[in-house]
């Protein structure tokens, strides 16, 4: 028993190096301070943070979780998924369904059971797959389960037949595209074009209330911390080393006797579940989920967050998501709006051409080089000192 505990403690100890702990502490401080500045500080104070700001950064934190999920498979296992937005949106839809069921009779049509859009489309009764979504626990389970199962089935088929590289990227893109087309259809029972919106309550609290928003922000920050810890544990374990081996030389890893497909499916499913959680936290904060979340462009944009921050560095993925999305908000909300696509497009090209390690990756690379130089210099100096000392000893003799 204590052996097991010790092993787990050892795992965490190895996973959480100093940089990781600093990152987690920062996140924890943000999770505590931002809601505090929003709720407890009066609106007149210069330290007050508006609810808009809280909702906006809450959204970014959800994107950061998605980025983390992509980095886990792309940065550490070499699987470039251009369809991770699909898992994000599925998680979002699961949460959206829960929120829809919480509206109750407060909809436009005040129907006791059916959501507004079903009344509007003359649905006779609630479809079976909507059953249970009035319970939060069930919805929360589905947030993990639906993306997870889809990723497992898809991954099992794809990786077993050794679909790799760009082929895999293209069919993940086709996957999210097909889902987008499907969710646009009214008769699928997810609100079609308009998606799910007009949410009222989450767990009995009004979604619009500042208190709820602050709590959702804190929850997103906490989920991000949890996701980060999970990713750190995964990548610093033996499992993670095999993932990196697969990334760098898939055939060789297979010949060494590892079941590459199993590793890939597992990490792909884990990543999809994380994306689902991100989507579930995202929906109550933005107040809507519609099929455009499935659009392939969204998924590719998420990949560029990771690329900007630095693939294969988890903090980089988070930082990239925050930076790019802040830039997007900054550009698209002002007179610069027409130029945002130039900036985003330029970012794709510049990062792949000039900064393939990303911001954090490059910084880390420089840091290591600098350290290596310092070590080299100090050993050289020590060597020089030693030889000097021996020389003087000779002289003394």
């Amino acid at each position, binding site marked *: 028993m204590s052996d097991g505990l010790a092993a787990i403690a050892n795992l965490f100890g190895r996973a959480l190096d100093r940089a990781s702990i600093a990152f987690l502490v920062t996140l924890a401080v943000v999770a505590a301070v931002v809601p505090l500045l929003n709720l407890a500080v009066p609106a007149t104070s210069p330290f007050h943070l508006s609810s808009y700001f809280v909702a906006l950064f809450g959204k970014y934190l959800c994107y950061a979780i998605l980025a983390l999920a992509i980095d886990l498979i792309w940065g550490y296992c070499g699987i*470039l998924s*251009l369809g991770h937005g699909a898992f994000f949106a599925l998680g979002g839809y699961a949460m959206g369904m829960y929120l829809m069921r919480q509206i109750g009779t407060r909809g436009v049509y005040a129907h006791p059971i059916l959501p507004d859009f079903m009344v509007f489309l003359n649905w006779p009764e609630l479809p079976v797959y909507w059953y249970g979504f009035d319970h939060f626990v069930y919805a929360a389970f589905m947030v993990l389960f639906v993306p997870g199962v889809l990723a497992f089935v*898809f991954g099992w*088929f*794809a990786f*077993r*037949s*050794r*679909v790799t*590289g*760009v*082929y895999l*990227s*293209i*069919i993940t*893109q*086709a*996957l999210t*595209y*097909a889902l987008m*087309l*499907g969710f*646009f*259809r009214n008769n699928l029972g997810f609100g079609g074009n308009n998606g799910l919106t007009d949410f009222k309550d989450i767990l009995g609290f009004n979604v619009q209330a500042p208190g709820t928003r602050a709590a959702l922000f804190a929850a997103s920050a906490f989920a991000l911390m949890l996701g980060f810890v999970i990713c750190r544990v995964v990548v610093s374990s033996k499992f993670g080393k095999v993932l990196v081996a697969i990334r760098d030389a898939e*055939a060789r890893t297979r010949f060494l006797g590892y079941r590459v497909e199993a590793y890939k499916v597992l990490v792909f499913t884990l990543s999809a579940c994380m994306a689902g959680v991100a989507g579930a936290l995202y929906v109550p904060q933005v107040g809507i989920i519609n099929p455009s979340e499935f659009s*392939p462009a969204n998924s*590719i944009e998420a*990949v*560029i967050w990771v*690329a900007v921050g630095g693939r294969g560095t988890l903090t980089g993925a988070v930082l990239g998501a925050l930076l790019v999305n802040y830039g997007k908000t900054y550009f698209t909300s002002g007179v610069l709006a*027409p*130029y945002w*696509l*130039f900036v*985003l*497009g*330029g*970012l*794709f*090209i510049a*990062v*792949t*051409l000039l900064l*393939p390690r990303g911001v954090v990756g490059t910084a880390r690379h420089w840091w290591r080089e600098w350290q290596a130089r310092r070590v080299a210099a100090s050993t050289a100096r020590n060597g020089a000192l030693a030889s000097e000392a021996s020389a003087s000893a000779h002289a003394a003799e």
Partner: protein
Amino acid sequence: MPGLKEMRALCDRLVALVLALGVFAAAVATSRATPYDDALARFTADSFAETIEGINRLVASGNPLAAIVIGALQDGRLFFSAATKRVFIKDTSERWLDAADGRPIVGAAPADLAPVRLNNRLRGIVAAALGSLTLMSPDPARRLEAARAVFKSHDPNALPALDQAIAKETDARVKQALLEARASVILYLDSASDPDKIEAIGMIRQRGDQEALALLGGLPGSTSAPVKKAAAEAIASIENGLAVWAALQNMWYGLSLGSVLLLAAIGLAITFGVMGVINMAHGEMVMLGAYTTFVVQEVIRARQPALFDYSLAIAIPAAFVVAGTVGILVERGIIRFLYGRPLETLLATWGLSLILQQSIRTAFGPTNKDVGNPSWMSGAFELGQITITNNRLWIIVFTLLVFAGLLGLLRFTRLGLEMRAVTQNRAMAASMGIRTSRIDALTFGLGSGIAGLAGVALSQIDNVSPNLGQGYIIDSFMVVVFGGVGNLWGTLLGAFTLGIANKFLEPYAGAVLGKIIILVLIILFIQKRPRGLFALKGRAVEA
């Protein structure tokens, strides 16, 4: 405003007809108390019953003016004067013609002129009467049109005229139409015997189109049992026939869609095949081609409107050069630094596609641009019972020409030889003295240029907007992935298979669901054959 234009053309023609017939009428002496005059007199009674009688008598009179009078009646241009018992026609240039001889009247028109009134029942009769009158027209096209009108209206009043017309008809096609029209009249004639009706059904069954089906389906309840049975059999057989035609029509749509997919995918297949590079900006090359067409047409409209019909002939090389040049610049500027990193290439070209789209949006605005069809590409014709639009036909021809051209280039030119060598084994090709980086640039230029050509074709059938390429990019990927890399025949087969499968699924599943099914099928197909229908074999595969 094509409707307005057609109306005007029709009016002009009517005026010409009226004048010509006026001259003709002037030549024949008209001062006889003929059945024609008698018929005209009935219009002055201002009673619907008398008007009907008048129309029937006009038709029976055989007078060449009858058609003009009834035409005027239909357009509300027929007036009568109750005081003088005379009938007048107001022609399209607001002159008054005397209906008795078709000549302009001398002096002022009578003061008490009132239009001959029509109601809905009368309008039907007027239309049928005009139909049977034109059955005798000297122009075969008009006779055919009239026969078709009677076929649809199955007006019993037209029967005598039909019989007359059939006896005189020499044109086989018109005769067939007349016989069919007669069959339709008989089928709906209460007085006709059952064997006659069954024979008529046989006639209509041979026609076998949607109209025949409507005719047979619309039989009144009072029809006798054997006729009903014959009609039901005929309906079943026509429906079978129609199903075959519908399948052929779907096939045609599928070929058309397939050719569009092929055009969009060929370029992608080449760059992917030779360089292993997924070019996400490929759709934007297509868009550049479409905008080049737009610009060429604008210049022609402004400078040399006479050349408009040749605008595509100018746009084709222009689009190839524009898109090809952009392609070479992109290869030299971005892609060559990313060889061996296909995933990064994918991201960089995606960024490029965003920039190209936004540039075009900034330069030309976000709205759709109007690219015209040259006259030889517009219009349609019927083949059996499928409608073939000329622009789709030309696009298929164009696609096949491009395909053949590309195949020829790969097989018979030095560049093609070198491209194939690089595709098969880059390292060996390089050691044989092929400058692979030059081949890469040219290949990328060629692939992009062909995308530009696709843009010219797509500008003829799709909206030219900055998002044009986006709509095709995923489909093109599917074609390439399905067909296999490095083999143009695979791309050809892939494109047409996907196009036809898509169009065959559409009637059953709807356009969107059809597309989803196709995507899912491809995803499943990839599991079975991860490298497409025609996969390259050998060492190149793992490289």
